[in-house]
């Protein structure tokens, strides 16, 4: 392994009004290594990267690339110097096709003519794809592809710039296990070419598998850089949170009661979900596993009435319900936390109070008009119960961290007094501490006799908090396992059944 230092960031500091976001942080990335950058949300990882890419202007410190000091104006400037980033939330022109996105801002031109050469664009794209072993038609429209493939395109774009430093920000948060494997193969091949990879993730097992070195940050400060081979998950967690977490999952205390929900032969009109039947019990945490595109999300969407149902019946407490749309489902005691928080969860410009109370407004009416006191009491209850960190109820939700946004949306649903909660990736993009609180909450709800259905891509999570796990494959229910007596291998086998 070469030890040549590619990128060195020294004594980086950055302040925002009232907050010191970065305080004398350093980061050294060597060629041919994968360097993990870890820390809880708000630890300053994103801010550090934004300083690198010139999105933020650093207050103090220096950045050296190949020994030369650099100070990029913006991410395009960085890209042209061989420093690329694959974003957590992809910024792509979704209505355009793959190759348009790849070559945006530097379209290959025809010889001597001021026109874009589609042919060259296609060929160049194919070249990069072949190189990275990506199987995507360059002419596919971005919005028609799953997130995982869109991410591949983003990586291919970084590679096409001949980038020496590639930053991956939470790359696997929306990928299935198989896709993660593919991603890791690509990352490894990039490393073997001598690239320096900065890898930001919350997933410990991934970090330990893929990275060569780990730099840990906490509260805007540099904590340590360690060799990945000589460190354990618990040690990393300890460095990140400054305390020891013995149990990643809270102890299970819920007891399973009588039958609450029965779904019979559910099929979707516009997705491949077909003929799914299962039951759920009071006080149960029911997991739904499966690969991306296996119909996990579609299952919840069909139960909740977001997606159009073709056939099938739903019974709550033995009574049939239609759940034609979310309004009706809410009346029937359902609640659903959607997967894409930003697109379908939060009202970005609205404050915490509006975001918390929107689904239960009728509760706060006083003679037909909304009562401010009731509204703020309900909101405050949510903030206290879930330990939401926010300056006030009047803060716009978009200025909170992902974990706190998630807590506000959970509050929204708890305020509707649901008996059945459908949670689609409830811990995505949330730091370890907040995740633990969400797990506690799920178990608390189960203890109250509610049925909690959890869809997750993280198998340890499902194994840690669920009682039973439904495994989806190719839009069908491939099997049902007992969380206590199953293994990841068993679930993976079922998940691949109808692929």
């Amino acid at each position, binding site marked *: 392994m070469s030890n040549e230092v590619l990128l060195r960031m020294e004594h980086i500091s950055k302040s925002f009004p009232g907050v010191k976001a970065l305080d004398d942080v350093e980061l050294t990335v060597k060629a041919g290594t994968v360097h993990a950058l870890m820390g809880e949300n708000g630890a300053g990882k994103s801010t550090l990267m934004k300083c690198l890419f010139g999105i933020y202007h650093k207050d103090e410190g220096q950045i050296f690339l190949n020994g030369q000091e650099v100070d990029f104006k913006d991410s395009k400037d960085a890209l042209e110097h061989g420093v690329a980033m694959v974003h957590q939330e992809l910024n792509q022109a979704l209505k355009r096709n793959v190759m348009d996105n790849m070559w945006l801002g530097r379209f290959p031109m025809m010889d001597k003519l001021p026109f874009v050469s589609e042919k060259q664009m296609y060929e160049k794209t194919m070249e990069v794809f072949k190189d990275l072993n990506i199987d995507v038609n360059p002419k596919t429209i971005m919005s028609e592809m799953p997130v995982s493939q869109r991410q591949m395109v983003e990586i291919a774009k970084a590679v096409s710039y001949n980038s020496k430093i590639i930053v991956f920000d939470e790359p696997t948060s929306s990928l299935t296990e198989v896709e993660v494997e593919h991603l890791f193969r690509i990352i490894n091949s990039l490393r073997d070419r001598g690239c320096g990879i900065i890898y930001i993730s919350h997933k410990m097992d991934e970090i330990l598998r893929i990275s060569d070195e780990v730099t840990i940050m906490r509260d805007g400060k540099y904590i340590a850089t360690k060799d990945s081979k000589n460190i354990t998950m618990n040690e990393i967690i300890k460095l990140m949170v400054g305390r020891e977490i013995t149990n990643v999952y809270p102890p299970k205390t819920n007891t399973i009661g009588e039958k609450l929900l029965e779904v019979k032969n559910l099929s979707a009109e516009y997705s491949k979900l077909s003929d799914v039947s299962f039951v759920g019990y009071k006080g149960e945490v029911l997991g739904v596993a499966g690969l991306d595109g296996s119909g996990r999300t579609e299952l919840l969407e069909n139960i909740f009435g977001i997606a159009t149902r073709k056939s099938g019946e739903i019974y709550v407490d033995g009574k049939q319900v239609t759940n034609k749309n979310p309004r009706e489902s809410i009346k029937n005691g359902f609640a659903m936390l959607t997967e894409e928080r930003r697109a379908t969860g939060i009202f970005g410009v*609205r404050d915490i109070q509006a975001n918390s109370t*929107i689904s239960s407004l009728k509760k706060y009416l006083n003679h037909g008009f*909304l009562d401010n006191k009731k509204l703020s009491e309900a909101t405050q209850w949510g903030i206290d119960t879930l330990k939401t960190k926010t300056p006030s109820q009047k803060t716009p939700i978009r200025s909170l961290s992902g974990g706190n946004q998630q807590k506000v949306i959970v509050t929204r649903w708890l305020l509707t007094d649901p008996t059945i909660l459908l949670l689609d990736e409830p811990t995505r993009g949330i730091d370890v501490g907040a995740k633990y609180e969400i797990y506690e909450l799920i178990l608390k709800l189960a203890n109250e006799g509610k049925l909690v259905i959890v869809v997750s891509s993280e198998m340890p999570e499902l194994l840690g908090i669920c009682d039973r796990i439904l495994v989806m494959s190719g839009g069908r229910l491939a099997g049902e396992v007992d969380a206590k007596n199953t293994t990841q291998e068993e679930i993976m086998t079922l998940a691949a059944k109808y692929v």
Partner: protein
Amino acid sequence: MEKKFDKKKILDLLLNNAMYIIIALLVVYVAIKRPKFLGIASIINIISLTASKLPMALGIAGCIVLAGTDISAGKIVGLNACITASLLTTVYKIWPNMTAPFPIPVVLLIVLCVGGLIGLFNGFCVAQFDLHPYIVTLSTQLIIYGIILIYMMLGTNNGMALSGMTEEYKQLITGPLFNIGTVRVPRYVFYALCFVGLMWVIWNKTTFGKNMFAVGSNKVAAEVSGVNVKKTIMMVFTLAGMMYAITGFIDAARVGSANATTGLNYESDAISACVIGGVSFVGGTGKISGVIIGVLLLQVIFAGLNFLSVNANLIYIVKGLIILIACAIDMRKYLTKK
């Protein structure tokens, strides 16, 4: 470091209250040049002008909160002004068979229905066909224009301006609410205040109001959260249509006549007022107080530049600049907080 921080704070304070500051500066400047600008007569005039434009701006603001717009507003005002003027009149031009003017409540009901139905139609097309409100109202605006032209040619009117409205009706709208010295405050100022109150309650104290903001902020999330998105959109447009109808009902008496050009370009002023007042096209944000400030600012500009004897052509330029500056300041809120 400390000082720099303060400077930024002051700048923020200035920018966040820019509209108030602009109004204040303008008023001070005009008042120095023309002291009568702050005379009672002048203040009442500006308040009256503001009051006459408020109901419409309040209606259109709802559409903008939905991240939409409504460019049919002016034409709806015009149509309802014409209907009002043709029914509450002593010269029966449009309807030669009339023998007496209609009772005022009946006419009010008629225009509310007409405005509400057109609004509902707008809202229905926006919600049901998922069309952008600009497209929908661009179309209905044309349709209504045609209807106005046809309506004005009915009977023996031949497209003439409608006037000769009944004294009772004129008194109801422009009659004195009270007098300050010799200056009369017209009743429609009071009506405008009522509508401000009504809209404030609707926006802040009803589930419909909260749902409106939610839909404007994130339509999909609103649907998932159990908001009846289509119903909300239709209600917002219906309410807006009714507010335009009321504007028309008031305007016919205020101006003293109505013709096919009544309401021309009203929507552009109303939209400008909303935008100046911070009802952003981003959707999901806005306050009633902002709408009032926006309308007031435009009227202060109109009256102020008049007092200053500024060339009419400059008024366009000043208005344009104000709108641009207001929007730029407004957008700042959404850009800086990263």
